[in-house]
C-alpha cells in the first residue's frame, strides 16, 4: 500500500456565524475558492494533476447545495480536469474528506486529491437542510434528542460540574487568544473579495477576556430541550439517570461560525512531480459508531481504533486535537484515555474559535500540524464526535 502525504493544510479564519459576522457577506462558494486559489498560488500547483476535490458540508442546501465542490472548481481558476464531490458525515465530514482522499491515494486509485469542508452558518444555520431524523416516526424509533443534551448527559454521568466545564472553556479561550496573539495559526489564509481586498484575516470569535464569573452568568442552553420531552426520552434509554444536570451554555459549547478548510493529500510520486514538500504522512484513520442518543462518545473509541491500526499507543502521541463540540466531550475523552491538559487542544478549540460544522475536521488538522511543526514534535491525533454517535480519528506523523 502506498503512503498518503499531507502536502498542505490551509483554512480561512473563522467569522462569527451570524449577521454582523465578518464573513456573513461572503458566499460559501467564495470561502472555498479563496482557499483553492491560495493553494494553487502557494505551490504554483498544476491543478490539472489534482484529480478530485472532496468537500464536506453540514447543510448542503441552497447556496451550499448540490455539489459545492465541483461548482467551486468550475467557478475558480482551477483546471476543468479536477472533479468534485460533496460529502456529509455531520461534524466529522471535514476530516472524513481528508481520510477518504488519503484512502484513495494509499490504495493507488488516485495520486493527488484536495479535501476539506465549508460551512457558512451565518447564511445557512443549523437545520437549514432539514434532515431525516426530523421525521416524527424516525425520531421516535431512533430515540432522537437534542445533541447538546447528550453533552449534558455525559457531564451528569461522569460527574462534571458546571465549574468543571466552565473552567475548561476559560482555558480554551486563553489558549486560543494566546496562540492568535503569537501568530501560531500559520494555516490561516485571509478571505479576500474579488478585488483582492481582505475581508477577514483572523479568528474573530475568540473572547480573550472570558472569566469564570462571566461564564457563570450564562443560562444552560439545553434545559429547554430537557424540559420539553428530550430529557424524558434520554431517561428511557438511560434508566440510571434520575435527572440531567444541564451544565452546557453557549460559553462552554462550540461556537457558531463561518469558515472553510482545505488539505492537499497525495502520493510520494505526485509530490515529487510538482516539487511539493510533504509536511506529514497519514498513519491511520478510523470511524466508529457509538450509542446514538447520547451521540458524543465516539472520539475515544475512534482514537483507540486508529492507534491500534497504526500499532501505536496513547503514549506515542505528542498532541491531541479533539473538536470542542462541548466541554464535557473533551473532559470525558481526557479521562477515558488518560490525556493531560498539556497535550490536548493546546491552542484552544471550537469553544473559543467556533465550529463551522463541515469544515472543522480539515481546519483542526491544519492547526495540529502547525503546532507539531512549531514544537518540533512528531505525531498527533485529530478526532471529532459527530451526529448519530459517529466518532472519527486520524493519526498524522511529521515527515
Amino acid at each position, binding site marked *: 500500500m502506498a503512503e498518503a502525504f499531507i502536502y498542505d493544510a490551509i483554512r480561512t479564519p473563522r467569522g462569527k456565524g451570524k449577521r454582523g459576522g465578518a464573513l456573513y457577506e461572503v458566499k460559501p462558494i467564495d470561502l472555498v475558492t479563496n482557499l483553492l486559489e491560495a493553494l494553487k498560488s502557494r505551490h504554483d500547483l498544476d491543478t490539472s494533476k489534482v484529480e478530485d476535490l472532496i468537500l464536506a458540508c453540514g447543510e448542503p442546501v441552497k447556496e451550499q447545495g448540490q455539489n459545492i465542490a465541483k461548482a467551486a472548481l468550475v467557478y475558480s481558476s482551477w483546471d476543468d480536469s479536477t472533479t468534485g464531490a460533496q460529502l456529509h458525515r455531520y461534524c466529522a465530514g471535514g476530516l472524513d474528506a481528508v481520510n477518504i482522499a488519503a484512502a484513495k491515494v494509499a490504495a493507488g486509485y488516485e495520486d493527488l486529491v484536495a479535501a476539506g469542508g465549508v460551512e457558512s452558518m451565518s447564511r445557512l444555520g443549523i437545520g437549514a437542510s432539514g434532515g431525516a431524523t426530523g*421525521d416524527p*416516526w424516525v425520531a421516535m424509533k431512533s430515540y432522537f434528542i437534542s445533541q447538546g443534551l447528550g453533552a449534558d448527559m455525559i457531564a451528569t454521568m461522569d460527574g462534571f460540574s458546571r465549574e468543571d466545564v466552565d473552567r475548561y472553556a476559560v482555558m480554551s479561550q486563553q489558549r486560543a487568544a494566546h496562540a492568535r496573539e503569537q501568530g501560531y495559526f500559520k494555516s490561516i489564509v485571509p478571505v479576500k473579495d474579488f478585488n483582492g481586498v481582505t475581508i477577514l484575516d483572523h479568528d474573530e470569535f475568540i473572547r480573550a477576556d472570558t472569566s469564570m464569573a462571566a461564564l457563570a452568568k450564562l443560562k444552560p442552553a439545553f434545559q429547554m430541550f430537557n424540559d*420539553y420531552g428530550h430529557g424524558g*426520552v434520554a431517561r428511557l434509554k438511560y*434508566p440510571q439517570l434520575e*435527572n440531567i444536570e444541564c451544565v452546557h451554555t453557549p460559553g462552554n459549547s462550540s461556537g457558531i461560525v463561518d469558515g472553510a478548510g482545505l488539505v492537499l493529500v497525495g502520493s510520494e510520486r505526485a509530490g515529487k512531480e510538482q516539487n511539493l514538500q510533504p509536511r506529514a504522512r497519514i498513519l491511520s484513520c478510523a470511524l466508529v459508531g457509538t450509542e446514538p442518543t447520547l451521540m458524543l462518545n465516539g472520539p475515544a473509541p475512534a482514537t483507540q481504533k486508529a492507534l491500534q491500526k497504526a500499532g501505536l499507543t496513547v503514549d506515542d502521541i505528542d498532541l491531541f486535537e479533539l473538536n470542542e463540540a462541548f466541554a464535557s466531550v473533551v473532559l470525558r475523552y481526557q479521562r477515558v484515555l488518560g490525556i493531560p491538559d498539556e497535550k490536548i487542544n493546546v491552542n484552544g478549540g471550537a469553544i473559543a474559535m467556533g465550529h463551522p460544522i463541515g469544515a472543522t475536521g480539515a481546519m483542526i488538522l491544519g492547526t495540529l500540524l502547525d503546532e507539531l511543526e512549531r514544537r518540533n514534535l512528531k505525531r498527533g491525533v485529530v478526532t471529532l464526535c459527530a451526529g448519530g454517535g459517529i466518532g472519527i480519528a486520524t493519526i498524522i506523523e511529521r515527515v
Partner: protein
Amino acid sequence: MGYIRLEKDSDGIVELIFDQPGKSVNTMGRDYDEAMRAAVTELQAMVEAGGVKGVYVRSGKPGQFFAGGDIKEMLEMDLKPSEAKKTEMYDGVMATKAPLRTLETLGVPVAVGLNGPALGGGFEIALACHHRVAMNGVQVGLPEAMIGLMPGAGGVVRMTYLLGMQEAIGLISQGKRLKAAQALEKGLLHELASDEADMHAKAKAWIKANPDAKQVWDQDAYQIPGGGPDEPANQGLTFFGPANVMVQTKNLMPAQNAIFACVVDSARVDFDTAQKIEGRYFLSLLLDQTARNMMTAFFVQMEALNKGASRPPVAERFTCKKLGIIGAGQMGAGIATIAAQKGISVVLKDISQENADRGKSYADAFFTKGIAKGKVTENKKAECMALIKASADYADLSDCDLIIEAVFEDRKVKAAVTKDTEAVIKSSSVFATNTSALPISELAAASTRPANFIGMHFFSPAEKMPLVEIIRGKLTSDEALAKAFDLAQQLGKTPIVVNDAAGFFTTRVIGTTISQGGIMLEEGINPVLIESAARDNGSPIGPLGAIDEISQETAYKNGKQAKADVEAQGKVWEDNAVSRVLDRMVNEFGRRGKVHGGGYYAYPEGGQKHLWPGLKDAFAPNGYKEIPYQDIKDRLTFCQSLEAVRAMEEGVIENVGDGNIGSIMGIGFPAQTGGAFQAINAYGLREFVARAQELEAKYGSDFAVPKLLIDRANDNKLFL
C-alpha cells in the same frame, strides 16, 4: 334482509340506511364491507343513470348510528401472519376505505344523520359525508387509541385534512369523545337537530341547497389548516411532539406513536396517497400485541364486566336512594361526594358532629373546585350539598338502603361500629365494610346478619379512583352482593368481585411489587434503577415512591400489626426485607414518609422530588449491586402476575377480566399489558413460566410458579 338498504325518496334523494341484521348496533366488519361495496356500486350506477339529487346516510336502528369496528373479528386475527397474508390484510384495509372515497366523490351531495353515538368506524363513515347533522347530545369521535388501535377507514386522514395536524393528533391520540355541541364548534359536525325528524329534514334541505358539494380536500384551493410539517409554525409540534408522546406513554403504546406519525405523514402528501399510508400504520396495529392486550381488557372484558359478568343472577336491580356512610375521613367523605354527585341522599356519620361536618366540607371543596374548572354549576353544587347530611347520631342511619363503613383499619373499632349500626338499620339493609385487607368473614363475626355483610374496597381518593373491589364473605348472600355491585355502578365505578382472603386480590397483588422494591433496595440495587424500571414497565408510580405516599411510618406500623397478629395466633413471624428496610428508614434515618417531610425521596420546596441521596450509604455502602436491568423490570411485574395466578388458584378471584381490570384500574398495573393475567398471555404462557423459573433460581421463591400456571402452560390454555 341486508345490512344496507337504498331507498330513493320523491325528491330524488337516495337514503343509504345501515341496519345490520341480528345486532342492536351496526359494526364495521366483513358484513359491512360487502354490503357497503355493493351499495356504493349501486349508487354509482344510479347517479350515472341520472335523477339522483343526493345521498342521505343514516341508521335504521333507533337511537343508534354506528358503533365502530368489529373488535372480536380483529382479536381473532393471527398476530404473526405470513407476508402473503399480510398483503391480503392490507388489501382488505384498503378495500374497506374504498367505498367511502367513492361515496364522497359520487358527484352528488352526501349528508349524514347521526341519531346516536358515532364512534370509531361510525364516525369515519360520517367524515366521508359532505354534511354532518347530529342529534343534540350524541357522542362522536375516534376513540380507537383507547384500546390500542387507530382509525383505519380514513378517519386519521380526513380529520387531519379537516382540522390540521395539531388538533387531529390531540383528538385522535387521546381518543377524545365529543358531545355533538363540542364537535360542532370544532367543525366536525355542521348542524345539530332536536329529534330524528328534524335531523332528516335538515340533512335533506342541505342536499337540495348544495348540489355542487365537495369535500374541502377535493376543492382546488385546498390547503391543510395550519399548514404542513415543514411550516415554521409547526416546528414545535414535529420536533418536540414525538418526544412528548414517548414520555407520556413511556414508549409503550404503539398506537400513539403510529397516530402521530400518520397525521404528519398524511399532511406531506395528497389525500389518496395519505389513505395508503394510514392503511399501513393501521395494519401494524392490527398485528400488535399491545393493541390485542388493550382490546381484550378495555373492550371485551370491560364490556362483560359492565354488563354484570361477575354479578350474581339476582333479577331485581337495586337502586340506592339513601346511603349511610360511617367515618367522615378522606375515604368516607370521598364516597359521600361521589354519591351526592350521582343524586343519592347521604348520611355522613362520624363520632362527633364536628368530624362529620369536616367530612362534608371535603365535598364542598370538591364541588367548588369543579366550579372553578367550569365542570360544575353553582346550582348543581347546591343540589349535591343538600343531599349530604352530616351527623353524629346512629339513629340518622335507620332508613338507609345501604351502609358503607369507612372507619380505620382496626378490627375492634369496626366490630363496635357494626354492632351499633345493625341496632338501628333495617334488617334487609346491606352493611358494607370498606377495607383494603382485613378478611371480611372475620369482620362479619361481629354481625348478627352476616348474609348482609360484605366488603367494598374503595380506592383513595374515592371521588376519582374508578374501581371498587367487592369482597364476598363466606356467608354473604347473592342478594347482598348484587346490591353492592349495583351501588358501585350507580356511583359510576367499575366493580370487580373477589372472594374473601387476606389482602383480597388487589392488595395482595400490589403488595408483591412493593415487596420487590424493598428487597431490591436491601440487596443494594441502585434505587434509581428500581424506580425507572417501574416507570419503564408502564407503572404510574415506583414501589419506593408508593411507600412514600402511604408513608414509611404507616407501612411500618402495619407491619408491626401484622407481626402481632401472626404471633397472637401462636405462629412464628418471619422477618422480611421490607420490614427490615422500613425499620431502618423510620428508626435509624427518621425518614417517615412524604407527609413527614421525606422518605425514599426528598421533596425540596419548589423543586422536583428526587431520591434521597442517603439511600446509597444506607443500603449500598460498598457500591451498588449490578443485575440486568431487564431483571429489575421483570421482578416488579412477574411477582404481580404470579400472585394473581395464586389468588386464582386459591379461589379468591374467578373471572380473568376482574383480575385484569382490577389490577390496572385499582393498583396501576401497566395498562398496555392488558392486566396481570393478560400480561402472561402476551408473554406466552410457556415463555412466562420459563422466565419465572429463571427469576426464581436467581431471586428466590417469590417467583415460584403456581401449579395452575404450569398446568395452563402445558395445555396452552390462555387466561381469558
